[in-house]
């Protein structure tokens, strides 16, 4: 059975862009072989400051990939990602059925300020 998944990779920011693309192609080849999977979207967020140090690094290069693949392809793929030294961290999750949209509203901020008072 095939499902939709989403992977967020955090690469070592010391890596050059071509090296990262090469790694991505290698990982994704594991998913698309035998025609059982398709990569629908990859977006590069680029270099970002990490909220805390990961493997003694302060910054990471984020890439988000969405794909559809048969579940039996995942263990091999995950193993390849885990063993790669250039990947600081990764997260593979089942993609949500509905497209999330940003919830940035002024109302929320105002409410939160009021709440802080309550908490005090």
């Amino acid at each position, binding site marked *: 059975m095939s499902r939709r998944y989403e992977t*967020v990779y*955090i690469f070592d920011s010391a890596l050059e862009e071509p090296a990262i693309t090469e790694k991505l192609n290698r990982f994704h080849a594991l998913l698309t072989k035998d025609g059982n999977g398709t990569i629908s979207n990859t977006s590069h967020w680029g270099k970002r400051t*990490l*909220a*805390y140090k*990961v493997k003694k690094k302060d910054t*990471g290069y*984020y890439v*988000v990939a969405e794909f559809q693949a048969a579940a039996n392809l995942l263990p091999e793929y995950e193993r390849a990602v885990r063993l790669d030294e250039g990947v600081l*961290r990764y*997260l593979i*999750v089942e993609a*949500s059925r*509905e*497209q*999330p*949209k*940003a*919830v*940035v*509203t002024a*109302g*929320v*901020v105002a*409410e*939160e300020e009021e*709440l*802080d008072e*309550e*908490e005090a």
Partner: protein
Amino acid sequence: MRRPAKTCPVCESGARVLDYKDDRTLSRFLTERGKILPSRLSGMCARHQRQLATAIKRARQLALIPYIKGHTA
């Protein structure tokens, strides 16, 4: 005095699902130390509060938001 019923900020915005990659939204539902704001304070409906908890925990793993704000070591 009875407080007026709070409405869920996520439902109000029209969104059905919360995204763990959207750290700006998630950080609105954290205390100043980075804890998850309880639904009692956020006014979140039960469904969105559950989604929020999952989303925040995923975002923490990805170093998008810190486990503890202001902690350096």
